[in-house]
């Protein structure tokens, strides 16, 4: 697969600046239907801005985004909400909504102005709650839940929108390892079985290697490289973008690359060895 294949999502020369600070610069990539696409990069590299641009919370200053062959700007907000759903890093809800009510909010783009949820909307809600493992929590109040439970409820809410594409902004940043894996297992399964397209921001390079079909590595707003996890997650790329040295190995069990950080003592030892050789 290469960039010239016409994808579901086409991002072309996208640019955006907050005032004078350029957050995204001439960014291009394309994502095919059913693909799990990862956006990587250090803090402040523009990943979250990309998600905001793709969900039209922000309007690009340059370039264009097209979704399913149509310019993103030509969609109405509700229309777009039926196509693209977003799971943010964290959601704070102060009002005492029940879990089921929060999940049903995902049906909103499918209802009329005064509409109440119909039987089919409830069926969708119960199905996605089953998938995300929050069915037992249905009657609980959202702010009684733990961070992990709440995040799975928000994922269920996004899936209830029945979108063609899911945008994830580090959705598992605050989850423990078991729940991280569960969330990505589910997302991967949905992409394989239902053709759901996923664009995910990840901080965890190992999760990216494990679950993403392709990755884009961002450095201060522009695309540093793009390709399969094996092509992108190399010692030189990571050193250039994150400005630190890592250990990269191959996990025998998964067949994927894995990345481990190195402490200062080890980095200094490597440096000394290199100087000895050099």
């Amino acid at each position, binding site marked *: 697969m290469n960039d010239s294949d016409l994808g579901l999502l086409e991002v072309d020369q996208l640019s955006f600046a907050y005032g004078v600070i350029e957050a995204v610069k001439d960014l291009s990539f394309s994502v095919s239907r059913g693909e799990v696409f990862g956006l990587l990069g250090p803090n402040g590299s523009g990943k979250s801005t990309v998600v905001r641009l793709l969900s039209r919370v922000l309007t690009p200053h340059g370039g264009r985004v097209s979704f399913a062959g149509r310019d993103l700007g030509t969609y109405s*907000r509700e*229309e777009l909400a039926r196509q*693209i759903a977003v799971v943010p890093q964290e*959601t704070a809800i102060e009002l005492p*909504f029940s879990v089921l009510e929060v999940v049903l909010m995902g049906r*909103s783009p499918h209802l009329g102005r*005064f509409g*109440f949820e119909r039987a089919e909307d409830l069926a969708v809600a119960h199905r996605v709650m089953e998938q995300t493992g929050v069915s037992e929590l249905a009657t609980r109040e959202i702010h009684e839940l733990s961070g992990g439970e709440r995040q799975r409820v928000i994922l269920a809410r996004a899936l209830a929108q029945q979108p063609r594409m899911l945008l994830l902004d580090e959705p598992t940043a605050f989850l423990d390892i078991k729940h991280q894996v569960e969330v990505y297992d589910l997302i991967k399964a949905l992409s394989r079985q239902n053709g759901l397209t996923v664009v995910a921001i990840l901080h965890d390079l190992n999760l990216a290697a494990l679950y993403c079909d392709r990755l884009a590595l961002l450095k201060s707003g522009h695309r540093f490289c793009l390709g399969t996890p094996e092509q992108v997650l190399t010692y030189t790329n990571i050193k250039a973008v994150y400005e630190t040295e890592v250990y990269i190995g191959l996990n025998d069990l998964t067949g994927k690359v894995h990345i481990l950080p190195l402490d200062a003592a080890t980095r200094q030892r490597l440096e000394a060895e290199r100087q000895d050789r050099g």
Partner: protein
Amino acid sequence: MPVLMPHLTKRKWLLVNCLLLLGLVGSIIICTSLGAVPVSLVHAWHAPSVDNPDYVILVRTRLPRVLLATIVGGALGVAGAALQALLHNPLACPHILGVSGGASLCGIIVLIFTGTAAASLTGFLRISLVSLAAFLGAVSTTLLIYRTALNHGRLQPYTLLLTGVVFNAFCGALIMLVNSLVDFYQSHSILFWLMGSLAAQDYVTVSAIGFYVLIGAGWLITQSRKFNLLSLGEESAAQLGVDVETLRRGTFLASSLLVGAIVSVSGMIGFVGLIVPHLLRLLFGADHRLLLPASAWGGAIFLLWADTLARTVVSPTELPVGVVTAMCGGPFFLYLLKKEGRKAFSR
């Protein structure tokens, strides 16, 4: 846990609204017959003439007052619920945010400075002029407080409440200043703004206020589902199809219309918009499709009884109704601050 169901159904919506509406009609009937002079509704109904004292008291003083309490209470309930949704702050209400104070100040200034000119106007026009001034006061206060509390695109709940409280005190001081500069008769009418009163108004005034309240509350209720989505945060709401900026502007305008209209006839009546949505949320859940209309009925019932208490408890004299609502609301606010404050301010 909200009673009945974990989510809102059409049946629950109808049931709760009908119940509250029944409660309101019942309250109107009972409160109309209660007062310094008890009135027999049956007697008034059977002999509708000026010779019948029951009929005269009912039609000339009791009924307009009861209707005004219903309208003002309903408007305060809806405005409180909508502002709480918009500002993500369960402690918000027009009074605490200083919106009522700003509206009162502008209303009073226009009332004083157009004194003679306004006196020549009658009925609907005169009420509309003061309402318009109070509305403009409410809009500018809302915007000022919102802008002050907005920090890097995020509403600071603590700043929001503090700004409101300070602004309210500031407006109160300015009103006292105006009060000390004008003559005795005008000063008497200013005092009523500060304490809040639903004392007898004519039917033209009541229907004029009813008209504005119907527009403002009606619009807010049609936006109910968007308020639900807003509780996920502005960005998530936009990603679910809500035009957040339009909703925000509309809500500021509509709630200012409500506050402007009611402040211009009843002065500053506090805490209704705080207590009512809160109790209803505990009872029936947080869904705004039910909460907003329920807050209208609930606010009306609450203020109706508060006003009945105000005019009967020390009869033949009256307490200002604002005193009654504040006596319920003050302790309730402190309780909420203790309970909700930690959650709201820990963000």
